[in-house]
């Protein structure tokens, strides 16, 4: 018995010593960090982008002149460069993990495109020459047509004490011609929450990269085609629950004049005076209410680019839904070309490197920075039409387009209600 104890003790001691020596050895001769020079290519792709983003750039689609931002996650340092004629931006950086964002507007074949995109968790630890950069695909960006409809204001964080039934979304016609809401889809995207420790979902290889976003809940505006016109300068209000919420919480506000309620089946929470928005798809239906994360979810509006009106049957087809690798929950699969506008909301702007939806939906993010604070993110005004309605900033980058305001407001800055709105 004593011998066994001696052997056990000896083995334990040897293991502990090896572990200790290994740990100490790992910490020796670690180089001091020095700046590196990095060239990074920005490519445009209009077709399917396979997994890994390895795709031949469209030679006719120049990305010259777009701004490339390198955000280092550890320090929050942001370094920017502009792409040259070879579509390469060269900057000096601290070695680190970066979120690389591209933002800009280019013209191709007489059509204006946003060229917004981003990629997370890129480890840049050594110099990358321009030749090396040109030999790689770099960041492949999906061009997005400059559209008219946009999400103009989101009130998502609720108000103390823990009141969240007043979540409100406003969609605005920021263009110069009438847009019809009929059949337009309004989706809450997966994942619902982003945090500094969250790991992005892994989709099957056949999904490629930046070809789709995935919906948790998809609501659809009713109408047969031209029932719900939205004139330039008009907006509609979509809410979790339409009522004067001040009856429940004096610090809240009145959104009882909403155009649509996103009602999930709780009879106690239905306002009969406000039409319920049809629910097209739900990954998992919470019948109490449609509560999106008070930390900040992500949203987009979309419709099929071939004019097809999506219906429930569309999402019953498993080809139009997808699961994460090794998981079973199915999410609505939304092709990139369908998307008209998107907004990503974060718990705070210090974790911008944890963006969870592709840059072609939103190259940045917005945040009120807290929960239950009663604040709201709203688009910045960059101009005014002759009729007094605002022209909002819409660069497809919410970091630049949105600002944080102290309280929600229905149709802020003189936005008009459609004639058919009650």
């Amino acid at each position, binding site marked *: 018995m004593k011998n066994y104890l001696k052997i056990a003790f000896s083995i334990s001691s040897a293991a*502990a010593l090896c*572990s*200790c020596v290994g*740990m*100490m050895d*790992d*910490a*020796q001769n*670690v*180089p*001091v*960090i*020095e*700046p590196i020079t990095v060239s990074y290519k920005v490519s445009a792709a209009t077709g399917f982008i396979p997994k890994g983003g390895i795709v031949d750039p469209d030679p006719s689609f120049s990305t010259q002149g777009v701004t490339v931002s390198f955000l280092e*996650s*550890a*320090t*929050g*340092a*942001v370094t920017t460069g502009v792409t040259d004629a070879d579509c390469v931006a060269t900057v000096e950086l*601290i*070695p*680190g*993990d970066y979120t690389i964002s591209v933002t800009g507007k280019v013209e191709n074949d007489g059509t204006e495109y946003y060229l917004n995109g981003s990629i997370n*968790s890129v*480890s840049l*630890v050594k110099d990358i020459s321009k030749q090396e950069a040109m030999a790689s695909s770099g960041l492949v960006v999906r061009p997005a047509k400059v559209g008219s409809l946009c999400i103009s204001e989101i009130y998502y964080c609720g108000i103390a004490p*823990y009141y969240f039934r007043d979540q409100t979304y406003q969609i605005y016609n920021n263009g110069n011609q009438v847009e019809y809401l009929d059949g337009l889809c309004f989706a809450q995207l997966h994942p619902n*929450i982003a*945090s*500094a*420790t969250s*790991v992005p979902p*892994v989709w099957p290889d056949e999904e490629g990269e930046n070809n789709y976003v995935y919906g948790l809940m998809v609501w659809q505006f009713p109408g047969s085609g031209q029932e719900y016109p939205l004139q330039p300068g008009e907006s509609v209000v979509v809410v979790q629950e339409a009522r004067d919420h001040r009856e429940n919480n004096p610090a809240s506000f009145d959104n009882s004049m909403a155009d649509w309620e996103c009602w999930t089946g709780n009879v106690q929470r239905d306002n009969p005076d406000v039409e319920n928005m049809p629910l097209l798809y739900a990954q998992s239906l919470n019948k109490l209410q449609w509560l999106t994360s008070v*930390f900040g979810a992500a949203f987009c509006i979309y419709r099929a680019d071939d004019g097809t009106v999506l219906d429930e049957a569309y999402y019953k087809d498993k080809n139009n839904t997808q699961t994460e*690798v*090794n998981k079973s929950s199915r999410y609505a699969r939304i092709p990139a070309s369908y998307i008209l506008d998107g907004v990503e909301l974060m*718990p*705070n702007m*210090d*974790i911008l490197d944890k963006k969870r939806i592709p840059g072609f939906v939103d190259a940045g993010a917005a945040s009120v920075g807290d*929960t239950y604070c009663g604040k709201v993110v709203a688009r910045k005004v960059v101009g005014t039409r002759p009729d007094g309605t605002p022209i909002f900033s819409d660069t497809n980058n919410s970091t630049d387009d949105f600002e944080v305001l102290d309280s929600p407001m229905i149709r802020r800055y003189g936005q008009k209600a459609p004639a058919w709105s009650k």
Partner: protein
Amino acid sequence: MKKNTYYKAAGCLSLAMAAVMPASAQNTTTASVERQKLENIWVNNTDNAAAGVIDAPSRYSLSDLNFGMTKGDFKRVQQGKDNNSVGFHTEGGGIYEKMGGMYLWGEFSYSRDRIKGARFNASLIDPLRGMPFLLADSTASKWINQDYSMRMKVAFPKLFDCLTLGVGASYQNAQGAKQVDPRPLMRLSKIGVTPSAVVEIGKHNFLGAHFDYYNRREDGNPTNTNNRVNQAGWDFVAPGFFQTGEFGSFSSLSSKRFYNANAMGGGVQYGFKNDRLNLLVSGSYMQKVEDVDNQYSGESTASIRKMIGTVKEELWNGKLVANYTFNSGNILALNIGYTDKSIDGIEYLQTYDNSFDVQAWIINAKFTRSNFSTKQTDVKLDYMVTDDGNSYKWWMGAQYTKLTDGYVYYQPRSTQDVETAVLGAFVSRNIRLCDRHALTLTVNGGYSTNRSGELDYHGYKADNVGFTMLTLKDFEFLCTDYAKFGGEVTYTFSGFKNPSMSLYVTADFDYYKPDSEIFSKRTFTNFKVGVAF
């Protein structure tokens, strides 16, 4: 026979640690122990346990209960503003002639600290121990810390009439619990071993060497009792460099944090000793490597922990100690020390590979991103007027300390450098009131002057309270001049229970007055009651 001797030694050591020592022939008091500590330069200035036979201290034991209060805002941000502490401490040992002249010494201490008004710490029992990777919140919080520490030293009987082997060991166990959300319960354990040897060269010269190893672990998980309210937090990698987040369900800082340190080092010593002069020159080096990693909520296996950083600490220490004993028995003691501590903060670049058969954070690169440097020079001169017995009548001393303290964060380059000089002096008078009663009075004073201080910050969060309320305020503290004075009174009743045992009661008070418009004062008050024998 030899085996029996060692068993006896072990038994006696246990007794020493419990401070139940056989009575020595002479009366033991706190003053006599203080004199002994001044005289025994090897035991009290090196970690060489074998050197106990050189000093050959007479046996003593001290056991006391203590209570302390610390108040005032002249402090580091992470220290408490209004603290109190209760504790028990016992130490004792000496030479055991009947065990072949072995030296045995042991110490045990327990303390329970209530630290109120501390800020920017949610992951360390001692946030000022040189660990830049920490979680923090800005709430003024109360911590309740408990610490159990044990140390022992043994020097075995002499071999070949010139070689003495020894070993020291230590064990510490502590818990720290923050009482306001986010509230981590931190657990710490530390175990160390220090084998050593001393060779006598002739009658007067000694060469010594020791090896030092310890392992230290600290871990805990900051959680909220009110899980409906998240708490703002900071994940620091260096002063002024951090990520902000929240403690709470689904929040960024909800993780269990592990600190695991291994340290190895050693030292060499030379000593000369005759009737008049007792000289010691020593040097030591210690390297500590401490890994910091996180395990996030919902992740149960160690394989998917994420490295947060590594600290590599190198500590060089040099000492020159010389005691000269005059014909009268009075002692002049010079103690010069130099310490150079350098801490590298290593950060990792990682990506999470969540493929089915990996599911782990993969390290792509690692860099030294920060360095913290402390250099300290101490010059201390003591003069002790001894009495006829084993104590002293007067003890006076002066000390000069030069401290340079700084750090660099390499990219974006930010630096802080502070140089401080402190001059202090004290006088103690041990008054024998009659055969059994004595009073020891001590007064001390000092002044600290900041010679230079520069904080050059090029980080990106200069407006964040994680910088303004912690880094900046700590810098202001370090650059503040202050005057300090204090005093101590000890009453000793000798012959308590038996002729060699004494009962003592001590009260001491220290007052720090900063030359500042930001800080007002800091006071330390301590009471102690104990027995010495």
